[in-house]
């Protein structure tokens, strides 16, 4: 196996000042930092709440399916890969390939939400809701807020594919960056909420 360099995906070395050194639109990075700060604070809050009720949180976590969470991790990282492929295709001047990759990425977002719906249905069927207090209130808030971002991504990804030729690459980069942020939040949320007891 040989690994090619960054040229295949069009990533450039950037040296013209701190903000300009960020790939894509600066505004999406401001959004990414804001979202990561909000989720980071929520994750710390969750950790402190667990420290005050370790038995209650462990009992709540025992009712979750860690395998489903892992499956959703693989679904999201694959969707992120397809979004990154769409950006690379757009830079190569292959908009049809970019749109196809975006559609596949959005389809995987739907798969993520379907798995999440199965999980929620199981818990709600057992009488556990956002009003149940303790672990389950925080579980539904954190995963629900993240799922809303996934739903937003499912709309944003196909939407940027409809951009005109002149704006396609910029919009692809911005949409994909949003999607990778959703991915990044999940890779920390999953072990924190599902696995660490």
């Amino acid at each position: 196996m040989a690994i090619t360099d960054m040229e295949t995906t069009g990533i450039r070395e950037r040296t013209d000042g701190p903000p300009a050194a960020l790939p894509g639109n600066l505004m999406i990075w401001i959004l990414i930092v804001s979202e990561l700060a909000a989720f980071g604070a929520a994750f710390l809050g969750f950790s402190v709440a667990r420290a005050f009720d370790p038995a209650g949180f462990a009992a709540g976590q025992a009712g979750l399916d860690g395998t489903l969470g892992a499956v959703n991790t693989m679904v999201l990282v694959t969707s992120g890969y397809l979004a990154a492929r769409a950006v690379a295709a757009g830079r190569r001047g292959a908009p049809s390939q970019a749109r196809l990759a975006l559609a596949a990425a959005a389809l995987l977002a739907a798969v993520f939400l379907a798995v999440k719906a199965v999980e929620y249905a199981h818990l709600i069927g057992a009488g556990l809701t956002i009003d149940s207090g303790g672990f389950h209130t925080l579980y539904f808030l954190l995963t629900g807020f993240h799922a809303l971002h996934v739903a937003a991504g499912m709309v944003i990804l196909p939407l940027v594919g409809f951009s005109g030729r002149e704006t396609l690459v910029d919009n692809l980069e911005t949409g994909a960056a949003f999607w990778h942020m959703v991915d990044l939040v999940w890779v920390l949320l999953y072990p924190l909420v599902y696995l660490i007891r």
Partner: protein
Amino acid sequence: MRFDRLTLSWFLLLGLSAVTLLFARHGAAAGAGGATGITGAALLLALAVAKGREILLHYLELAGSPAWARAFTGALAALAGAILLVYAAGQAGWIGPGGTP
């Protein structure tokens, strides 16, 4: 067969996710509601930071901006470290029901 760095990142992310899943299943099998333990929590968080780093560098393309890559990866590691610190404090009884008022 040739793979570009992005595809290699995807493989790495799938592999790290599989390791996390194996750890989760092992924990469930050994479990009986037992705590993950500080070492286990550190391992799970380290896996999460490794996945996050791949996403930052190769999905979000910060590999081309080394200073930003260090800043974002450092922030992610700091958050994971803070989560681990709170977890360890809870395990040690410094905070929580067993903690001193």
